[in-house]
């Protein structure tokens, strides 16, 4: 059966994806940028618009990392604005389970679901890093091993809060004079990470529960995805490794009584479209070189080597000296935290094998665009990737803010629609409708028994 492709757009708020020297590159913080990209995505009948999160500016060699395209909004707040100027597009945010509490996350997401008419989604992440913790009164309190137990309990607790109001609890009936049914919002959770009780403030939104997203490729992360998530983000956008990930994660669902259709797998990807394949390849190369500037190449190398390499020529060979595995020069980035000696060995081998300079190596390992070509080439490649079970769709991070998806939406989306693999128009109103996900079975008060007949 032909699969329908699910599409999402992301406005980056850190790293080096944004090609800011391009004169078309606009503001990373102005509301117009978010509105432009979201409206473009909605015009292309995308499933949702996504904003990630980073709760501390990264630091490099003891200074604020000046190469980062940083400076982002509070994502849920901005998405609430975006929801006001769109009608169908889902709105998804990463919200950290370490530096928030279930009560506030549950009410903010329920609020977004109400205000958007059922379009909210939550990418659940945990962080254990004490560096980010310095921005918070609780500090970096979480042991690494406790990450997924906290995330799992956080999510379970949040669901209990959403379920603490049953649908019929909100009566608002001026005739009987009853606004709520007795016990609406009552909850008690006694667990390892959370021991809370009382009354929840916000009735569930149109989706019951916002859509739950998970990202992370570790074994524990995959298991969490299989048990609890409805969408999975991954970094695997090469078809071979994507298919392995897809097979593995979908294969885990049965253990939790779930079917493959209960979970959408959406790798992060980039796309470069031009009139011809040749032009697109040339433009993609230009984008990649702009993303990995000479300075960025050195900084990435320093992050792996754990030492100052500013004296090295980015167009020259890799350093002879060995990495310092215990020194962390780039703070606030999980990728470069562990296994750096091994990474350095791999990088050296790759550079030696292909005769790559420092910058060429960093481009080879980090850079490159996922889908490159004429509109037809890109449409075929995206479709092939999905139909051969590399993914259910993609999250496109844009290299230009805010116009980076204009070409894809104007030139590729119509081809996907012609192929019958992408909706010509929205058929539902909620994000669950777009993703083909069931509404969660209410586990709380609505399951039939209420404490008092009413």
């Amino acid at each position: 059966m032909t699969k329908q492709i699910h599409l999402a757009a992301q406005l980056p708020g850190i790293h080096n994806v944004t090609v800011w020297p391009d004169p078309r590159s606009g503001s990373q913080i102005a509301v117009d940028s978010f509105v432009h990209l979201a409206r473009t995505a909605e015009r292309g009948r995308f499933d949702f618009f996504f904003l990630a999160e980073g709760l501390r500016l990264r630091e490099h060699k003891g200074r604020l990392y000046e190469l980062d395209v940083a400076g982002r909004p509070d994502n849920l707040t901005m998405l609430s604005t975006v929801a006001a100027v769109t009608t169908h597009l889902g709105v998804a945010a990463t919200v950290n389970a370490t530096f928030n509490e279930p009560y506030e996350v549950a009410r903010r997401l329920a609020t977004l679901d109400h205000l958007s008419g059922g379009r909210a989604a939550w990418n659940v992440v945990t962080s254990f890093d004490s560096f980010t913790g310095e921005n918070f009164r609780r500090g970096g309190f979480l042991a690494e091993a406790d990450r997924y137990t906290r995330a799992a309990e956080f999510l379970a607790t949040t669901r209990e809060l959403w379920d603490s109001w049953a649908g019929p609890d909100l009566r608002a009936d001026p005739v009987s004079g009853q606004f709520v049914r007795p016990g609406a919002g009552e909850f008690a959770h006694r667990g390892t990470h959370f021991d809370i009780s009382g009354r929840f403030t916000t009735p569930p939104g149109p989706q019951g529960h916002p859509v739950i997203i998970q990202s992370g490729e570790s074994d524990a992360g995959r298991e969490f995805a299989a048990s609890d998530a409805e969408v999975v983000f991954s970094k695997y956008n090469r078809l071979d490794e994507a298919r392995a990930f897809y097979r593995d994660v979908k294969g885990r669902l049965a253990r939790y009584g779930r079917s493959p259709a209960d979970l959408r797998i959406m790798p992060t990807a980039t796309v470069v479209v031009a009139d011809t394949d040749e032009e697109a390849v040339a433009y993609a190369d230009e984008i990649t070189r702009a993303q990995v500037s000479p300075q960025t190449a050195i900084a990435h190398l320093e992050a792996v080597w754990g030492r100052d390499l500013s004296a090295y020529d980015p167009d020259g060979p890799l350093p002879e000296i060995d990495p310092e595995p215990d020194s962390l020069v780039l703070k606030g980035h999980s990728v470069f935290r562990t296994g750096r000696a091994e990474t350095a060995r791999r990088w050296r081998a790759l550079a030696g094998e292909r005769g790559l300079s420092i910058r060429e190596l960093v481009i080879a390992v980090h850079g490159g665009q996922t889908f490159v070509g004429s509109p037809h080439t890109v449409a075929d490649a995206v479709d092939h990737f999905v139909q051969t079970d590399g993914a259910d769709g993609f999250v496109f991070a844009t290299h230009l803010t805010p116009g980076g998806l204009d070409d894809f939406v104007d030139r590729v989306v119509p081809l996907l629609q012609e192929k019958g693999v992408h909706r010509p128009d929205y058929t539902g109103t909620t994000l669950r409708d777009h993703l083909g996900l069931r509404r969660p079975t209410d586990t709380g008060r609505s399951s039939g028994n209420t404490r008092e007949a009413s």
Partner: protein
Amino acid sequence: MSDGPLHLAVALDGAGWHPAAWRSHDAVPGALFTAAYWTRLVTEAERGLLDFVTLEDALGPQSAAPHRPDDRTDQVRGRLDAVLLAAHLAPLTTHIGLVPTVNVTHTEPFHVAVGIATLDHASRGRAGLRPQIAPRAADAGHFGRRTTPQLTDDDVRDPELIAERLRPLFAEATDVVEVARRLWDSWEDDAEIRDTATGRFLDGAKLHHIDFEGAYFSVKGPSITPRPPQGQPLVASLAHASTPYEFAARGSDVVLVTPRDRAGTEAILAQVDEAVDRVGRDERARPLRRFAELVVFLDDEPGAAIRRKERLDDLDGATYTSDALIFTGGSGELADLLLDWRAAGLDGFRLRPGAVPHDLTAITRRLVPELRRRNAFRTAYGTGTLRTRLGLPHPRNRYARPC
């Protein structure tokens, strides 16, 4: 002060401030959790050219008692998050200020600052923050991270006693506002340099750790969000006693007070002045605007407003009382009262509509024209930010080197 333009704000909460307001004939209680409901109210407030709206919020459901939860089912219970609600209203409005209430006892200071900075970006300089401490001990149980003082039935009869018992929470809230302001300043306006020669998007010398270390918490900084358009969004706080007057004198741009009459206005404003002196605030550099609060039931037909209020009292089974004076009457009388009190030194008022849409519409379509006839209210919005409208200077960035 008393000869400048009168400033008017409305406080939106549920179906209005009377607990039975949702049972008024024109109420739409089933819509309280929809975007359309709030859009209609704020659009109406903007049509009246009001300075700003505030949105009530709390980290626990409403209760008939200020200090503990109750089991009543005949009043509005449940709310949307006020910051997200304000952000949703931002692109649907153009001029009006949006001032959500934010609990600062249980919310991380970093989240408070970044949320309001984002609202200011989203609204192009119309954001405010109404910091509120958690007066209900039960709300702490929703977080399980700390306990807060349990007020007694005796305490809640006297604002000074309440403030006395909650003094540590006010001290902590003072630190939260200080941290928010530092985080708002932590990006200098020109921190984003986009320097292609060096590949730097940011100038690290213009981004600042705030290194706040207080008695209650510490925050490193800088913010993740560039400096908001207003520099520092408006901070407005409600105050009924000496401790909260001092809290406002330290950190707020607008203090909201609750006098019962003209003489009371003078007495309270004297207390505010003393608090300003006590904390050493220089009002030439950092003006503090003084607003009085009123609950209003507004009908021009004689006796109609009081009858409406009494009918709601009957439905609720109790006479509605409030920390603020409850006004019932016509727009002419209300205009008289506002101008009389203002002469005591107020800059403006935050009106709490007893029932919406009725009393909100009465404010925008009756009171506002009445004030205009007396040359006491604007006939058009000017340009500029919410701070500009209130005559507040753009705050200098504490981290920027003077040039």
